[in-house]
């Protein structure tokens, strides 16, 4: 058991940190980028590709870097640290992950090659509209069409290619849809965290199927990977929110003294640190499980996301409260951190959903062993 990064991974981390730091060195810089379309920096996207970050999880045969979950997590955490709005987890881990798991050699080489090179942005359309527009697929072999509505699809309006889940006669299918496909309507908008989402409507839209049979397991496994990556993004965000708050307590004066004179506030900062250490441990562990014991990956993802839910609410809310009024303003950073943590929390299942999953199996084992 070992929690230290090797030097190669540290080099990757530092490189990514460098690129992101240049674009998102201040909260104002980030706001400027997220206020313009497409909500992130195409330039930074390209630089991430140059570093190899966009191809990390994909095999070299597919045009990727052939790295593993640890490298993906390190990048996600750096994204979270500065709230970089590029759709790394959305495009690479989730949408790219579905292609990697379900596509054939040619499909993978094509899509993942272009994704790794930063030439395209993928979006995963996996959430059916809550208004009841379930997407169904009809057809066979090379000839499929999709009908229905997905919403919200993160970065769905900008995406060059959509990876779409749809109901088929043989269960859940996974499909690729081109941005310029007929019968495809995309309505993009801003999400509260500065990101982008879209309503994506399919009406007899031509699609290419990835794989065959019921692919619910492929979807669930890929969602587990995305949950773990998002958990890392979240701990990056929490870490910055906590540090920003601690710094504020050291410098902000009230009643003639700095805020860290007030023991009640100090103790609450200590509680933030406790939350931070605990969530960091669980999230790191989930990545190790993904790398070394993938058969437990879904469970580990649920555990990580549950812990992220608890810590994210705690740290996000307290970061604002301990700042006072300034924390409420869009000009200052902590509010954006809370907003992003809230978005991650409600994407791919919130803490209660994870708890429900874990609660259902709590009687199946005695002592919980993190290693075995």
């Amino acid at each position, binding site marked *: 058991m070992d929690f230290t990064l090797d030097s190669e991974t540290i080099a990757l981390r530092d490189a990514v940190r460098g690129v992101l730091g240049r674009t998102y060195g201040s909260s104002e810089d980030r706001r400027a980028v997220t206020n313009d379309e497409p909500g992130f920096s195409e330039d930074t996207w390209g630089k991430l590709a140059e570093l190899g970050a966009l191809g990390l999880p994909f095999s070299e045969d597919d045009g990727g870097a052939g790295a593993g979950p640890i490298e993906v997590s390190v990048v996600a955490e750096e994204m979270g640290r500065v709230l970089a709005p590029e759709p790394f987890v959305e495009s690479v881990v989730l949408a790219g992950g579905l292609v990697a798991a379900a596509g054939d050699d040619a499909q993978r080489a094509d899509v993942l090659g272009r994704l790794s090179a930063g030439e395209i942005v993928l979006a995963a359309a996996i959430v059916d509209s809550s208004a009841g527009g379930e997407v169904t697929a009809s057809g066979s072999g090379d000839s499929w069409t999709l009908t229905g509505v997905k*919403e919200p699809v993160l970065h769905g309006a900008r995406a060059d290619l959509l990876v779409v889940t749809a109901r088929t006669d043989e269960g859940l299918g996974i499909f690729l849809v081109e941005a310029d496909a007929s019968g495809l309507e995309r309505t993009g908008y801003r999400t509260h965290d500065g990101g982008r989402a879209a309503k994506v409507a399919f009406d007899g839209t031509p699609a290419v199927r990835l794989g065959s049979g019921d692919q619910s397991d492929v979807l669930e496994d890929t969602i587990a990977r995305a949950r773990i990556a998002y958990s890392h993004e979240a701990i990056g965000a929490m870490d910055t929110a906590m540090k920003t708050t601690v710094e504020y307590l050291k410098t902000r004066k009230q009643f003639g003294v700095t805020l860290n004179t007030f023991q009640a506030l100090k103790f609450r900062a200590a509680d933030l640190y406790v939350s931070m250490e605990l969530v960091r441990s669980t999230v790191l562990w989930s990545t190790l499980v993904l790398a070394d014991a993938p058969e437990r990956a879904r469970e580990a993802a649920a555990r990580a996301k549950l812990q992220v839910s608890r810590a994210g609410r705690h740290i996000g809310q307290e970061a604002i409260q301990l700042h006072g009024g300034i924390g409420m303003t869009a000009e200052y950073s902590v509010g954006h951190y*809370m907003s992003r943590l809230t978005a991650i929390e409600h994407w791919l299942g919130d803490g209660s959903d994870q708890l429900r999953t874990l609660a259902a199996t709590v009687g199946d084992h005695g002592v919980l062993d993190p290693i075995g």
Partner: protein
Amino acid sequence: MKLRLSDEDAAFRDEMREFFTTKVPQDIRDTVAARRELSKDQFVRAQQTLNEAGLAVPNWPVEWGGKDWTPLQRHIWHEEMQLAHVPIPLAFNASMVGPVIAAFGSQELKERFLPATANLDIWWSQGFSEPDAGSDLASLRTTAVRDGDEYVVNGQKTWTTLGQYGDWIFTLVRTNPDVKKQAGISFLLIDMTSPGLTVRPIELIDGGHEVNEVFFEDVRVPVGNLVGEENKGWDYAKFLLGNERVGVAPVGSTKRLLAQAKEIAGDRLSDPILSSRVAELENGLLALELTALRVVAHSADGKPHPASSVLKLRGTELQQEVTELLVDLAGPDSLASGAGDGSDVPDWSRVATPQYLNFRKASIYGGSNEVQRQIIAGTILGL
């Protein structure tokens, strides 16, 4: 001890309920129910409807439009308004500057301002907080220097809620820098169209614009706009802040919001985890409401009961917890705050996260919950 309202109070409640649910324009109540921002016009029309019926400023002296109600009646008025989705009369007018002018202003100031204040013909803004004086309000640095029959005001105020609509602003300004900080403060009324006064919007984390910075550069203010005596402003401010805490627990509106959440949840309430969470919130709100009733019952002397800090503290916590529940109910749709009308995401889901983010302010503004704990520990427990 008894549970039931007296016949008189029950009749009063029916009367209020009848008025609020039938006389206040429906578009305004719908906007509140949908948790959308009210326009200035809606605020004004709502308050003028109330004022016409003598229901806008019941807490004022009777001669200026107030009512000689019992604390319980005032509480019922306040709750029924919230339950009916009627916007509460603008606090800056009805609860803050109005009572201060009525209590400490000259007859001339009263005549000049009170009727227009009650009717929201003048929209008041609050100029208390400053960037470097958060919870430590008395350390404010905006100065007013006497020059003939005018004050020359320089400095900056912040967190001025709805200042973009403001006609006038009531301010605390430093008129004597050489004494203990509380002893050199005056309460000054300033026309917001005065030269040298500028308002700059502050965007909040929900993307909305409801607070502002207000800058004063050599703003000249007639000395006649001083309320009460020079350098006594801190006393008036304390009086005002005491009033602010009355009815500070947003019980009725939070109850309505929780009831909306239950409607939205519908069949999902068969999930014991969700229904337990709702039941726990409902019990928490019940305890809060009953405490508010106990507090009003014991504040007949007109002074706020010290336990009103409990109402502020717990009231804002519960308000925040209910807004959080709505985000959770919205699930992934809660991200879609910016969805337009073509979206499939229901309206309540789109407002859920912005409201949740916005309501983090509730435990900060108007005396943060840390300040409330300090008051409880100090004033009530003697610690």
